[in-house]
């Protein structure tokens, strides 16, 4: 066992999750591969979405993987960072929009 929670080499072992549950693992990878195929969205658009979501879920494996993927798909640094800002804006917005609840509560408690 490594003495840390995240090891970059573990990303290569992702496919081995089928070892303990083959059927569900295979279904997951089949679904995953289908999701990233060219569809109504281009593969490039999907890669940028994946990069943004990777930052939201704060998965270092996903960030590594989709940084490479977006580079390979010809995205510029500006496009990649804008995608992360979209994730950050939604994430911060999600906190801020809850402040309406706080304001509601304040007003309910203070008759204000």
């Amino acid at each position, binding site marked *: 066992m490594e003495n840390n929670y995240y090891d970059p080499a573990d990303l290569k072992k992702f496919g081995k999750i089928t070892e303990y549950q083959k059927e569900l693992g295979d279904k997951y990878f089949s679904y995953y591969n289908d999701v990233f195929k060219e569809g109504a969205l281009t593969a490039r658009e999907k890669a940028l979405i994946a990069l943004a979501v990777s930052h939201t879920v704060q998965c270092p494996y996903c960030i590594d993987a989709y940084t490479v993927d977006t580079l390979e798909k*010809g995205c*510029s*640094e500006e496009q990649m960072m804008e995608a992360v800002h979209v994730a950050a804006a939604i994430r911060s917005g999600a906190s801020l929009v809850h402040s309406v609840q706080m304001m509601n509560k304040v007003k309910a408690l203070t008759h204000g």
Partner: protein
Amino acid sequence: MKSLAAKRHPLSAAARQVQLLEDPVHDLPGFRETLERHGIRTLRSTALGTLQVNIGKMCNQTCVHCHVDAGPDRKERMDRPTMEACLQAIDAHQIGIVDITGGAPEMHPDFRWFVAEVRKRGARIIVRCNLTIIVSNKKYRDLPEFYRSQGVEVVCSLPFYTAGRTDRQRGDGVFERSIEALRLLNAVGYGTGDSDKVLNMVYNPAGAFLPGSQSDLEQQFKKALLKDHGISFDALFAITNLPISRFLEQLQKSGNYEEYMEKLVNAFNPVTVEGLMCRTMVSVGHDGMLYDCDFNQMLEMPLSAGMPRHIADLPNASVIGRNIVTGRHCYGCTAGAGSSCGGATT
């Protein structure tokens, strides 16, 4: 920046590069072994359609990824008798495509003479132009007009459609000067859809990653260069960086060598083998030595045993059907959609 040769870097020696690539300490299958695993027992040439001529290593740029280790400090260049021997080989084998490369081939004092001589023979002429050479000195500013007058197909190189990534690979200000050169090429009709003035663009990743879909990249480059700079070109060739010379040194220095090699090996696509450029070409070094491709040339891996060694011996030799000399660097041409001097091979 100096070339590896000028710095006397150990990797400036081809033998050291081959030693590193074939080192058994790296747990990677040999290229032959992989071919055999896919039922490909022999890799042979099928035609002699292209003669790729590297007329010298001198270049006005010193790009960090250059597999030739070219630069202003490289003085090696092809002499006139060797160029004449190339012309004799073109005549003898009726070679249809002559691909002139370097360095910056335009810096060779006999470049224009050689192009004109090839043109007289009716071959299609490709010149691999780094763009900035056109605006590097007054004496090169008429190159677009020269290319036009000789019916040259220009294959220019631009690593990316933004300045930041291009300049990191090629040096400060290279993007801006490349744009200026592209405008001069467009001004004489290159890259505007005219089949006599073809301007193709080479994209190679600016780092330790593989090129994506060539057609998608072409669309992105066309859209960005037209919108931001009013520039057009015909086709984009997406080329994989091969682990040779300065790119190999970069991979080692940045700690990406093993991961990159694994990536190339894992991306091996047997469908690419049929279209490998080495099967239809012969590459000539500045000293007249013969190779299966430009990459083998840089690794000093000559044609297989029994084949001619020098261009002077090519006119009277048959090289079709020869065994292609391979090594682990060949994974660069078989990864994903395949890679060649003309881009993807599938």
